[in-house]
């Protein structure tokens, strides 16, 4: 079973076989419409703008499993929300990404690349750990997706070569992407 064997549905309900992306470098991300500041969407779009002509595709999978308990958002200051629309890369159907109900693709990705901890220098790292310990202690166990904006990098041959946690910004992985293009 490889990455190209999975079939998923776009947000318009159209079936898409990941084999269609053979030869491309893929960045697969679990996304979320969020209130407050969502710089990761913006940075993902910037990566897409910069590298799509060289063969990068970004695949966004919206998921509500982490809703309602977002750490570090200051909604009182940022009085707006964002939806997935607006980004130009492909967004797929909303679905689960962790646990028993996780989509097969995410079971595969998390089996390929294990959880190796958060980047503790990121300002969200500590509030995220605190929020997980308090609300979802079971999420901290094992290799499942910990939070929104976990990113998997896939090379042109379909190998899952890296996993970046929510605490790694899209902008900071530009070099990793470039090395595969």
């Amino acid at each position, binding site marked *: 079973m490889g990455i190209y064997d999975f079939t998923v549905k776009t947000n318009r309900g159209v079936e898409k076989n990941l084999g269609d992306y053979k030869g491309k470098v893929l960045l697969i991300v679990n996304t979320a*419409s969020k*209130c407050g500041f969502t710089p990761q969407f913006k940075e993902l779009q910037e990566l897409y703008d910069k590298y799509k002509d060289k063969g990068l595709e970004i695949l966004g999978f919206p998921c509500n499993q982490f809703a309602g308990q977002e750490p570090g958002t200051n909604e009182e200051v940022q*009085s*707006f*929300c*964002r*939806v997935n*629309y*607006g980004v130009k890369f492909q967004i797929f159907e909303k679905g689960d990404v962790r646990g028993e109900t996780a989509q097969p693709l995410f079971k595969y990705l998390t089996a390929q690349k294990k959880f190796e901890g958060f980047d503790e220098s990121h300002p969200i790292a500590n509030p995220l750990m605190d929020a997980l310990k308090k609300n979802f202690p079971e999420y901290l166990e094992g290799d499942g997706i910990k939070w929104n904006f976990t990113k998997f990098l896939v090379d042109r041959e379909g190998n899952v070569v890296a996993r970046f946690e929510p605490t790694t910004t899209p902008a900071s992985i530009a070099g990793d992407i470039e090395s595969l293009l």
Partner: protein
Amino acid sequence: MVKIYGFESCGWCAKCKAYLQSKGVEYEFHDIELNPEDAEACEKLTGDTAVPVITADDKNYVLGFDKAKIDELLGL
């Protein structure tokens, strides 16, 4: 007609709707999650993908639920 761009599960959009209602302001709600053309119009207006966006003339707008700015925009 005043327009609000937003989406259903957006709490700030709901606050915005309630506020305009409380002021007796009629508005059209444009759902950017359901209607790609509304999403496009909204992004064209603000250059951003955040909502709520309140506008009366499709030119001047307020992004976010900011009562003072909304009052100023709509002359409330």
